[in-house]
C-alpha cells in the first residue's frame, strides 16, 4: 500500500492589541478570547501548525508585540508563523530569535519585495511566507490588496504570486478577503488559477466550513489549507465560541484518504 499523503491543516488566529479576534471581510473584529489560552487548546488538539496574524499592526504602523509573541512561541509545540507589522529585517530576526519558525509578509512584500529576498537568503525560503489578500474590484476581477485590505494594487493575484515566488518566498498564503468569516467555502477558482502558476506550496485561506472544503481546496491545487472561523466557532455557529480542530481519525477519513 502506498503511504498516505497528509496535508497541513492550519488554524489562523487574528490578534488585535493582545486579544484574539475574528473578522468578517476584514471588518467587525469580534472578541474571541485570550490567544495564549487558545494556543494551549490547539496544542492539546495537536494541530499541524499555527499562524498568528496581528490584523492591524500594518494599518496602525505599530511594532509587533514581542512580549506576546515570546509567550505564544513558548507555548507552541508545533510550527508557528507570525505576521503583522514586519517592515524590516531586524524585526524578523527578533521574531525568529523568540522561537517563531516562519514570518508572514504581506504589506511589506508588496512595497519592498527585496525584503523577502533578503530574509529568504538569510533564514531559508521555508521560513518566509508571503500572504496575498485578494479582493474583487468593481468589475468583479481579482486584485491584490495590502495594509489590512485598505490599500489597492493593480496586480492580479497570479502576477503577485509569481512575484512572491521569484522574490524567494517559501510558500504563499492565499487569502480571499470576500471569503473571510463567510463560512461559505473557499474560492476554489482562485485557488486553481493561482496554484497553476506556482511552484511553491499554496496555502488556501478564507471561507472554510470543514473538511470537505479542505479536501476540495487541495483537489483545486492547494498544498495545505488554513482556516479561522471554523476553528473558533462551535459547529460554524458564530454565536458560540469554541476552539476546535478535527482529530486525526476525522482528517484521515475525510481528507487524507482521498488524496
Amino acid at each position: 500500500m502506498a503511504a498516505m499523503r497528509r496535508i497541513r491543516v492550519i488554524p489562523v488566529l487574528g490578534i488585535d492589541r493582545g486579544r484574539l479576534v475574528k473578522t468578517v471581510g476584514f471588518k467587525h473584529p469580534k472578541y474571541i478570547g485570550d490567544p495564549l489560552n487558545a494556543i494551549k487548546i490547539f496544542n492539546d488538539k495537536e494541530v499541524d501548525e499555527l499562524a498568528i496574524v496581528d490584523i492591524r499592526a500594518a494599518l496602525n504602523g505599530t511594532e509587533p508585540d514581542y512580549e506576546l509573541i515570546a509567550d505564544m512561541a513558548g507555548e507552541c509545540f508545533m510550527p508557528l508563523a507570525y505576521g503583522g507589522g514586519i517592515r524590516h529585517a531586524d524585526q524578523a530576526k527578533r521574531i525568529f530569535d523568540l522561537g517563531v519558525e516562519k514570518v508572514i509578509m504581506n504589506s511589506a512584500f508588496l512595497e519592498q519585495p527585496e525584503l523577502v529576498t533578503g530574509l529568504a537568503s538569510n533564514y531559508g525560503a521555508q521560513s518566509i511566507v508571503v500572504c496575498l489578500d485578494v479582493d474583487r474590484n468593481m468589475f468583479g476581477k481579482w486584485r491584490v490588496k495590502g495594509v489590512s485590505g485598505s490599500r489597492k494594487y493593480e496586480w492580479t493575484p497570479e502576477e503577485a504570486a509569481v512575484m512572491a515566488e521569484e522574490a524567494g518566498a517559501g510558500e504563499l498564503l492565499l487569502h480571499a478577503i470576500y471569503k473571510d468569516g463567510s463560512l461559505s467555502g473557499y474560492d476554489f477558482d482562485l485557488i486553481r488559477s493561482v496554484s497553476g502558476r506556482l511552484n511553491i506550496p499554496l496555502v488556501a485561506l478564507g471561507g472554510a466550513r470543514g473538511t470537505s472544503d479542505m479536501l476540495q481546496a487541495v483537489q483545486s491545487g492547494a498544498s495545505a489549507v488554513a482556516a479561522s472561523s471554523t476553528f473558533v466557532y462551535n459547529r460554524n455557529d458564530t454565536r458560540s465560541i469554541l476552539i476546535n480542530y478535527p482529530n486525526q481519525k476525522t482528517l484521515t477519513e475525510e481528507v487524507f484518504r482521498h488524496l
Partner: protein
Amino acid sequence: MSICIIDYGLGNLASIRNMIRKAGGKSEISSDPTVIAAAEKLILPGVGHFAAGMENILKSGLLPVLHEAVLERKTPILGICLGMQLMAGHSEEGDVAGLGWFDADIIRFRQEDMGNLKVPHMGWNEVKPAKAHALFPNVDEPERFYFVHSYHIRCNNPEDVLATAHYGYDFTCAVSRKNIAGMQFHPEKSHRFGMGMMERFIQWQP
C-alpha cells in the same frame, strides 16, 4: 544533566530549548567552546543552506571542538534537520564536505520520482524505525513528526539507518551510530511525539 544547544548562527534554537524544558531537561544555548566541551550532551540544530552551515562552523572555530567532543570523548549528540545533514560526508547543496561522521551523502529529492508532490517536503509524516534503538522504542501507534526540507540523507552503511519516512519514495529520515544520532524532522515542533523523543534523548545512554 546539561544539554548544550550549539549556536553556530543557524536554526531555531529557542524552540529546542522550550521543548527540552517541557520534556524535563535543562539546556543552554552556546557557541562557547568551553561550554560545548563541558556539556554532557549536545544538540546540533540548524535550518538553512548546507554550505552556509559548514562555513559558519568553520568560521566559528568549532570544528575541532565538535570532533573532539563527539569522536574522542563520545559525548552523545543529536543533530536536527540541517544539523543532521552536516554529519554526512558530503552534500549536493553547495557541493561541499560535511563533518563526515556518517558515510553518507545529502541529496536533493529526486523530482522525477515525486509525481506532483512539491519540494520542499513540508508537513507531518509518519516515521518508521529501521532498527531497535533507545530513541525509537517499539510503539504500537505510528509516530508523526514535522518535516521541512528539500534534501535528505542517503547512507552508504545500511546499519546507520535509524528510521525512514515516505515522500514520493522511502527516504532515510534518522541515522545513528554509537553516540551520534541525527533526525531530519523537528522533534521540538512535533507535539507529544517530539516531547517523547526529547525525553528519550535526555535518558539516552549510548
